[in-house]
């Protein structure tokens, strides 16, 4: 592979990861507030279909993207309503919505199957695009990919460097304490569920109007991406930058699968396409195993030097979920 081809391939990886970055950032915000929105997979499909349908009918890309975000926000509102107002299991509601929104997208999207629609044009940034290596890699993308770059840092700064971010963390960690300090816990949770849902919804048009333009129903190849985004949220340890890293790693592995395909003709393409999944399980195992009791017990029995080394490695990998993730808060 020539250097130029490699650069184009990697630029493609950054673009392909865009939708997953949006979804993982959205879910990170939602889960930081203490709510699990398990509907992501269905939300992405439904918003991909709806935004494509709107963009085809109106010819407006902007309306398409807005529709995607609106769909995501609405589905998230249902999750919030069920779990916060009606106090039903978040996992149950999210799972049912994941399935139902998927079927809804296939059913309502039927008339739009295979139509040709608008696609977000790429927009090279003058000047910056001529920087060697970084130019072709970062600055010859489309508007949405630039947005995904920016949002990673904006989300990170919002969560960890602002006052509202502090409130967000507090309702996810210690809602009772936050409530005493005058934060309206359930209102804030609803707000971040809807906001996160809108970001997840942006992943839909990021596929159907950009990365995998079009709507092809069950063979769109989008089914499953949402579950990946959920896994990446955990892998990212509820930190926007680490989550984005997970999204890029995933997209890179998928691209690597395609590249290896050429040199390994005996391995069916379907196998290499799913290669990231077992690696994802392994990654989840690595970030979680440090939290288990038996590891602590085993470590305690080891000699100090080994123990400290292993403990340090595990601690650097470990991700601790927000303390009140999935736990409803009863406001008196």
């Amino acid at each position, binding site marked *: 592979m020539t250097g130029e081809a490699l650069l184009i391939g990697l630029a493609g990886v950054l673009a392909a990861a865009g939708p997953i970055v949006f979804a993982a950032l959205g879910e990170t915000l939602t889960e930081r507030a203490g709510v699990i929105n398990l509907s992501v997979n269905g939300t992405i499909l439904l918003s991909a279909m709806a935004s494509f349908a709107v963009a085809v009918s109106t010819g407006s890309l902007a309306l398409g993207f807005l529709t995607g975000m609106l769909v995501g926000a609405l589905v998230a509102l249902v999750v919030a309503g069920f779990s916060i107002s*009606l106090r039903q299991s*978040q996992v149950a509601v999210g799972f049912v919505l994941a*399935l139902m929104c998927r*079927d809804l997208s296939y059913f309502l999207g039927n008339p739009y199957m295979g139509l040709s629609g608008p696609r977000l044009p790429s927009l090279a940034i003058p000047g910056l695009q001529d920087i060697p290596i970084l130019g072709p890699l970062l600055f010859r993308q489309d508007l949405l990919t630039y947005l995904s770059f920016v949002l990673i840092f904006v989300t990170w700064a919002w969560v960890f460097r602002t006052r509202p971010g502090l409130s967000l963390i507090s309702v996810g960690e210690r809602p009772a304490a936050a409530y005493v300090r005058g934060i309206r816990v359930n209102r804030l949770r609803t707000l971040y569920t809807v906001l996160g849902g809108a970001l997840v919804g942006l992943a839909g048009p990021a596929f159907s109007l950009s990365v995998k333009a079009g709507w092809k129903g069950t063979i769109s190849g989008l089914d499953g991406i949402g579950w990946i985004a959920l896994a990446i949220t955990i892998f990212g340890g509820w930190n926007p930058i680490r989550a984005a890293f997970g999204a890029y790693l995933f997209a890179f592995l998928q691209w690597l699968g395609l590249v290896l395909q050429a040199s390994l003709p005996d391995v069916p393409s*379907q*196998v290499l396409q799913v290669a990231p999944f077992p690696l994802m399980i392994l990654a989840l*195992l690595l970030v979680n195993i440090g939290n288990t009791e038996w590891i602590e017990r085993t470590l305690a029995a080891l000699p100090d030097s080994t123990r400290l080394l292993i403990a340090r490695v595990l601690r650097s990998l470990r991700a601790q979920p927000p303390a009140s993730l999935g736990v409803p808060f009863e406001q008196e």
Partner: protein
Amino acid sequence: MKAPRAVSGAGLRLVAVGLALLFTTIVLVISGAPPLEAYRQILVGSLGSFKKVTDVLVAWVPLVLATSGLLVTFAGGLWNIGIEGQITLGAIFATGALRAALDAGTAPAPAIAGAVVAGIVGGALWALLAGLLKVYGGVNEIFGGLGLNFVAVSLTLWLIFGPWKRPGVGSMSGTEPFPDFLSLPALEGYRLSPWGLVVAILGFAVIFFLLQGTTFGLRLKAVGKNARAAFLLGVPTTRHMLAAFLLCGGLGGAAGAIQVTAVYHRLIPSISSGYGYLGLMVAMLVNFQPLWMPLLAFFFAALNIGSIQLPIVLRLDSSLAGVLQGALVLFVLAMEGVRQRWRRTPAPGGEA
């Protein structure tokens, strides 16, 4: 005070069914389809003739098996989303056993029985993997299970296009079909195998007895309600959780084995057909009243089979069944929430 509570519960369920139908009707109107005609097609396509009813039962068998297993994991407070992969592994193991039997020239009866047992083992092992990841690796069973589902699908594809490919070139149509004598005998002229029905009813009966009439069932429910409290009271929680995974995986594996030996007679790419996810919805609806499960599973299976008519007659997508099923579960959950709000009692069970 018991009676009015039951009445209001049943009344709210009816409201939920009504709302789900209303929602689905709105979806149909949006897509420009005639709602009544769509419902009529689903009805005719599922219950219109004896043949159709047997087709529904063909779908009912794996659904009941998977749901029976999920009742066990739900009782233990576990979300075994990996059930799809467990069905798939059951199918893979059953196919492997049948291939071996074919090579060895085993007599049909032990070959088929061996395939079903192999399927049960395959499903149970795959579930055990998810269980071990949860118990010893701290990996939430939802994500471990989902990952394993994808791995199971790729394993199927690899087998179909690789080692088990048809003579010549492998294709998405699956492996080479087994000869007739290696399939569970079906009713003359129908797709339904009475043996499949027997396995499903047996599976459900065993699970019903296990959950309602044994100490294991009682302890498992204690683990599901409050794992920490159960542990402090001396229940070995880890062992109970792993046992629940094994049981559920075994039943899922049996479903996969039936799909191979009685329905498809070969391994196909999407052998689990979504019955695992559907089973999760049925199990959620039944919610600790397992006696209703076979009936509800029949209703869900009928929706699936009936909706096959939709693309043929009305050029609609058959995913309408999933929309109606999902809406039904959602509105039942909503009504449950409303009822709890009225009574101002905390949610039973709470978070899974």
